[in-house]
């Protein structure tokens, strides 16, 4: 089939064509703008489902690879590929986008055409990030994605939207620049921007980095990703961005954008810089654990509902980072699963908070109270999502958390023990806030006659509930698709790490690399292939 040959390109650029088509519509034809965007995003979602069939389950490496020359010098190529990890992140993105369109049906009132164009362009950037195998291309999409997101916050956000948008852009840019330097440095050392090529060089021992270089490069990449995650103490952009962003912005931000950080760690930091990763792991783990506990504690005392959810994100993403940096197959799979589960349940939480906002135009918890009485359906949905978010077994949050903690425990029981306190704390802040919003008598006159969820909202929420249950009960459907990619990442790490450990004695330091980090391949190659032959 012609389509499957270029499925990845289609996935990236289809929303862009949708955006172009939107431009042809009249600006005041709101209904058709919304309908067209919705149809485009649903079609995109259907396209992405083809990935499930097209990506083989047990094959290591990338599938559906597309390669095209783009710029000859420096050699930047249009290189796309997908594996089990990125596949689900793409599907998550395409799943959340139509939901966002539906969720914004009544919530967005001005510049409606621009809003939907922005939303589709954001999807282009995010899908591009997950599918790029060329470092430069990756960076390009990484930056492209920033602009629509900043617009979403800055134009359609709430009171302090400009401050939040600015903070979001500057924070991320600071990391991006470091990553750009890292990418250029790597290019300087290898002569390539191509991820598989660089990995192959590392694997074959053609490329060896001195420990210092490796650590610097690791940090350059890691900081960019850590800001995106966000890892404590780089998280302060997140609460502001969330509180000011419109519902759709928050859903995409929490659901997908944060995962770009953890995805980057899995895809780049670990395989490219194994030794540095190992060295950094204890520090990263401590930051992740601090993030888990600290995020939960700060969430507990937030008077602002959306901020509370934002801080809980910090806490949940701490689990993901911990799972990645435990370097265990089980915890890595847990981390990937948690990325997906968090995308769904956190997205759903923001949707629900957005629905409350649509009705009352405030996020202050004290403005609510007793909402179960006027809106029992919304309360039930909210409780369901809260339960999934605090990891109740049979719902999606449990699987990821459990696997992360279990895998981590196998190697570092004390990390797991500290992180597991987050399980207690998540119950505290979620149940407490739920009680303050939904239980008790209705305290504010305005809340007495709030309408319950309508058909559109029910449709959104039921979808989310079904996915949550499915992920919680049928988790092997997901895990078996990314088990091999996770294993591959760890093998790439261990193999090159093992080589790294054996090499320094056998290769003279001077031959290994010069001051700029460029390796001298001629001396390194025979030794290492000999070694890998004997092992």
């Amino acid at each position, binding site marked *: 089939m012609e389509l499957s040959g270029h499925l990845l390109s289609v996935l990236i650029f289809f929303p862009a064509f949708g955006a172009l088509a939107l431009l042809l519509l009249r600006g005041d034809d709101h209904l058709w703008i919304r309908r067209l965007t919705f149809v485009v995003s649903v079609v995109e979602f259907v396209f992405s489902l083809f990935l499930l069939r097209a990506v083989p389950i047990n094959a290591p490496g990338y599938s559906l690879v597309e390669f095209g020359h783009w710029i000859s010098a420096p050699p930047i190529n249009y290189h796309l590929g997908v594996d089990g990890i990125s596949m689900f992140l793409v599907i998550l993105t395409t799943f959340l986008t139509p939901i966002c369109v539906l969720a914004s049906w009544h919530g967005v009132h001005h510049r409606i055409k621009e809003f939907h164009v922005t939303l589709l362009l954001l999807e282009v950037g995010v899908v591009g990030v997950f599918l790029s195998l060329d470092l430069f291309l990756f960076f390009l999409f990484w930056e492209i994605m920033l602009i629509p997101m900043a617009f979403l916050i800055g134009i359609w956000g709430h009171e302090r939207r400009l401050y939040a948008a600015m*903070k979001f852009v*500057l*924070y991320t840019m600071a990391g991006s620049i470091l990553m750009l330097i890292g990418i250029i440095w790597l290019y300087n050392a290898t002569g390539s921007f191509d991820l598989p090529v660089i990995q192959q060089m590392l694997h074959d021992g053609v490329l060896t980095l001195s420990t210092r270089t490796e650590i610097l490069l690791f940090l350059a990449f890691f900081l960019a990703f850590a800001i995106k995650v966000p890892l404590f*103490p780089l*998280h*302060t*952009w997140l609460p502001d961005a969330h509180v000011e962003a419109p519902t759709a912005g928050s859903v995409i931000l929490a659901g997908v954008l944060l995962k770009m950080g953890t995805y980057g760690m899995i895809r780049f930091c670990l395989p490219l810089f194994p030794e540095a990763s190992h060295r950094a792991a204890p520090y990263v783990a401590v930051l992740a654990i601090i993030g888990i506990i*600290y995020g939960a*504690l*700060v969430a*507990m*005392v*937030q008077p602002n509902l959306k901020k509370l959810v934002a801080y809980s994100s910090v806490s949940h993403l701490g689990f993901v980072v911990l799972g990645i940096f435990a370097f*265990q*197959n*089980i915890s890595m*799979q*847990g981390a990937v699963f948690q990325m997906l589960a968090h995308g769904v349940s956190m997205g759903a939480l923001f949707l629900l908070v957005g629905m409350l906002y649509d009705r009352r135009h405030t996020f202050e918890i004290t403005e609510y109270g*007793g909402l*179960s*009485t006027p809106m029992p359906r919304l309360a039930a949905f909210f409780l369901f999502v809260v*339960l999934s978010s605090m990891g*109740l*077994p*049979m719902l999606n949050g*449990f*699987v990821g958390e*459990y*696997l992360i*903690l*279990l*895998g981590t*425990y*196998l190697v570092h*029981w004390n990390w*797991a*023990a500290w992180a*597991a*306190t987050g*399980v*207690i704390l998540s*119950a*505290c802040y979620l*149940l*407490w806030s739920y*009680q303050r919003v*939904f*239980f*008790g*008598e209705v305290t504010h006159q305005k809340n007495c006659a709030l309408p319950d969820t309508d058909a559109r909202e029910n449709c959104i929420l039921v979808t989310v509930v079904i996915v949550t249950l499915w992920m919680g*009960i049928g*988790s*092997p459907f997901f*895990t*078996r698709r990314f*088990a091999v990619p996770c294993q591959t990442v760890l093998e790439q790490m261990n193999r090159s790490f093992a080589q790294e450990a054996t090499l320094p004695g056998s290769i003279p330091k001077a031959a290994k690399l010069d001051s700029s980090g460029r390796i001298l391949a001629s001396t390194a190659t025979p030794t290492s292939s000999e070694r890998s032959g004997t092992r």
Partner: protein
Amino acid sequence: MPILEHLWIIPLLPLLGSAINGLLGAKWPNKIVTSVALGSTGLSFACALEAVREFIAGGQAPFRKQFFDWIIAGNFRAGFDLQLDQLTVVMVLVVTGVGFLIHIYATGYMAHEGGYYRFFSYLNLFMFFMLILVLAANFVLLFVGWEGVGLCSYLLIGFYFLKKSAADAGKKAFIVNRIGDFGFMLGMFLLFRAFGSLDFQTVFAKAATWQPEAVGQFGTLTIACLLLFMGATGKSAQLPLYVWLPDAMEGPTPVSALIHAATMVTAGVYVVARSHVLFTHAPTAMYVVAIVGCATAIFAATIGLVQPDIKKVLAYSTVSQLGYMFLACGVGAFGAGIFHLMTHSFFKALLFLSAGSVIHAMGGEQDMWHMGGLASKIKVTFWCMLFGTIAIAGFVPFAGFFSKDAILFATYQSEYSGKALYAVGLVAAIFTSFYMFRLIWLTFFGEKRYDEHHVHVHESPGSMTLPLMILALLSLVGGWFAAPALWGGPNYFADFLAPVFGNAEAPGGEAAHSLELTLSIVAVLAATAGLIVAWRMYSGKVVRGTSTGLHKILYNKYYVDELYQATIVGPLVWLSRNVFWKVVDVGMIDGSVNGIAHGTEAVGDTVRHTQSGNVRSYAVWVIIGALVILAIIFWPLWRPAFFVATSGGVR
């Protein structure tokens, strides 16, 4: 259809009932909701009976079946695997049987409450999770039930969510349970690390081959057992995590009977008994279990002595009786623990339901000081409650006598401070008898201490009294499985469970038998002592005195809630709000971020003055710039002297 092959039907039926009522019940009349709820639990009970029949007919070999994979990652597998062995048989029958009776009762009790469908949806959901808990064949699936019953407990305690106290109590129950679950999870992880699996069969088979750890040695098994026990202290309301259970009485009374007396709170005992292979290999952990159980038994009993609220007395009594069960497990008498679990579920469910009937009759009044003289007005309830009281106090030939006797006997024989634990257990038995008969006298005898013009005392409807009578009968005969042992015959209950627990608790012999008889007589004497003291103090005219001294401390439950609030909850919230959020997050981290931004802005603001538009100042900048460039270009020319001088100095 052979049910045994399709064990999943037993838990699935209540789940279906819950889903149907929860999704559609809002618009239905109570009648349909009732039939769905009762139908699903009744069928489930029937299926359980049939499965047990097949199990026994099939030779009593443990039945295991894997239904589908739930979580798979690397070498970790958690499946939807169910098993049925003798221990599960007891638990499943108790859960479905007592559960069904309580469902019937609830149709009467809740008839006039709002949210009828919601109540039964939650109650059925609870049945589902409880059945998963007892049928699970691995720790992870057990944990599903474990957390699930906690959720239902949360929902049902907070059923009257308009009341802040009810919502608070639900939240407290969930969070305290989560603290226990923290330990339970770590325990599971440790077991997985040690045995590479979390299947009961694999773990226990491997553990059985291990060398038992010495007393005082904190090896893998001891730590794993202690962590599992931490989970059990949360769920089964033992020291120091018992605090949620008394508050849980905010829920409707059938909930207190089903969840907080008969079934869910015994889950901890079940887990310890289920993991008996691990525990017997970890005597230190056993010792801890015994001590915690014994301490809880006496601690809760003392609080129960003075409580004015009829449900609170029963709540502390439950905590105390659960302590007995753990005491039994701790001294290695797992069978006796499970026996007491079963009889307790009969008489405690009976007591709670009777209390509910009393409250129903009194129009919602729960304070015993506002009751009195009810015996003649609500005869059925009175007789049923009396049966329950005699049973829990441990008089022959009621159920409680046999099970409590078995526990005390096993404790007395234990080599780990058995005599001391026995003594404490015996004192707790006196207290038990006292507070229960105090309850009887205050409620049913003496003068009427309520306003007869406002309270119209009436007997409950048949749907409520019928389950009471059945449970009263069970409280009488439920212990007779063990009766022949009194005159040297077999103990049918212990023999039934022997394939699970082995013959670890069969010291046997003529000497042991005469000792058991002696101890039984002592136990009955103890119960009589409690009865007499209660009779002397509370028969006739009673006055509610002011609370002072020891009484005040007991009345205020040793101020444990206040202590936790002051030392843990309060400081944590204060620290989070005033230090982590306002100082660290907003002040330090975000402050420095914004500080950088402001600094950049300030620098820019200063530097921008150089862009003055003044040609002469630009000329100066051009000259300065040119000089700097020249200096850089000619750097090599004047560098050597400087460079040599410094580098010479350093090297």
